[in-house]
């Protein structure tokens, strides 16, 4: 059944120009679309093919190409298949359209991507910060943000060997485990 439906899907998708379809498995379809064609694609998928569940919106930062890749994963409860629609947008200024009108879950994902990558979604109901409300650095998930350097600058974590740990080690406890026990825990006899 699902085979038939997805072939029908292939026909359907041909209606959109510039789309590239790759069938990865019986239940996974990858579609590469131009950025401006995505809303039309999603509308089509939702309205005519039953892809009513937006599973996730993922963002990938291709810093070398100076592009963001946005991936919309939509699932159909009828044909039991998942279409991942990939688009690429320019890293600067990093603005794209919201699909909240079509899929309400997009509200959360767009908000999340906004604070993690700094992409602004036009028309999204809530672009306030959610997780990083008290963070004033750059969007942390961008590739140029070096987490380790940030930590080295702001926080102390190295060379932590407090007296109580030394005592514990002196007593024979703590982190020192004989090498033969390091790989697997005790065997049952």
């Amino acid at each position, binding site marked *: 059944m699902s085979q038939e439906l997805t072939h029908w899907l292939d026909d359907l998708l041909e209606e959109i120009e510039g789309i590239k379809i790759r069938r990865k498995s019986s239940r996974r379809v990858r579609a590469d679309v131009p950025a401006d064609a995505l809303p039309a694609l999603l509308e089509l998928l939702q309205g005519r093919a039953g892809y009513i569940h937006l599973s996730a919106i993922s963002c990938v930062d291709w810093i070398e190409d100076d592009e963001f890749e946005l991936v919309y994963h939509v699932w159909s409860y009828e044909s039991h298949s998942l279409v991942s629609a990939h688009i690429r947008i320019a890293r600067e200024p990093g603005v794209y359209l919201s699909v909240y009108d079509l899929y309400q879950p997009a509200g959360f994902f767009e908000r999340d991507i906004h604070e993690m990558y700094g992409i602004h979604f036009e028309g999204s109901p809530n672009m306030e910060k959610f997780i*990083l*409300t*008290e*963070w004033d*650095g750059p969007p*942390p998930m961008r590739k140029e*943000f070096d*987490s*380790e350097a*940030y*930590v080295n600058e*702001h*926080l*102390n*974590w190295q060379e*932590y060997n407090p007296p*109580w740990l030394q005592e514990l080690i002196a007593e024979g406890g703590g982190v020192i485990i004989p090498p033969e026990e390091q790989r697997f825990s005790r065997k049952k006899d």
Partner: protein
Amino acid sequence: MSSIKQIPVITERKGNPLARVFDEFVRFCRSRSLFILHYCTGCGAIELPPAMTSRFDMERLGIQPMVSPRQADILLITGYVSIKTLKRVILTYEQMGSPKYVIGICSCTVNGGMYWQSYATAKKLDEYMPVDLYIAGCMPRPEAVLAGLQKLMDRIHSGEANSWEDYFRNYDYYLGNQQKLFGENWQTPTDIITEAKHYDLIGEGTLGKHTQLLEQHQKPLEALDMRLGHDLKEPTE
């Protein structure tokens, strides 16, 4: 009955045997009745319900969970503290009533644990507040938690668990670390310096350049005292 308040936790005077017995009794009671704050700061909190409930039953040691920081004695930092949480943890810690004890559960509180690279979590808990006891592990088993709590009980009984005094005595150090992380105009509603004076716990490290910085920014929240108001200006209407 003489006032308990007047008797410090660790007393050097051996004069009045009755007072010594009484003092001992109070310390004993403190060690046998511990209220844990019900605040799941991190993933280690998942091992607290087993420790509380039927299998390990914390209540047989006189330990029970409490809801608000005012009621609690122990602040369990169960794992990593993200910076956003750390602010709340410090607020909560300052709202708790002394003597208060902090237990750092899980490795993350010791040195950041497996999140050592993370931009979002604080690494060394004892830079921001005095910690009485660490229970290392990822995550420590309920038995370990209970063993740690028993160790704390012993320390309370013997009078060693007085790190809360350290927060007042070395406030400048803790505040400095907090300011480094949260920015220069960081403040909480609690006025620690006045409180330190209240307990007579002003130490050499209480005041310093960080507290000076605080005083520049702070709008101290003084308690609304009851007054007849004759020294005030005309009411605004």
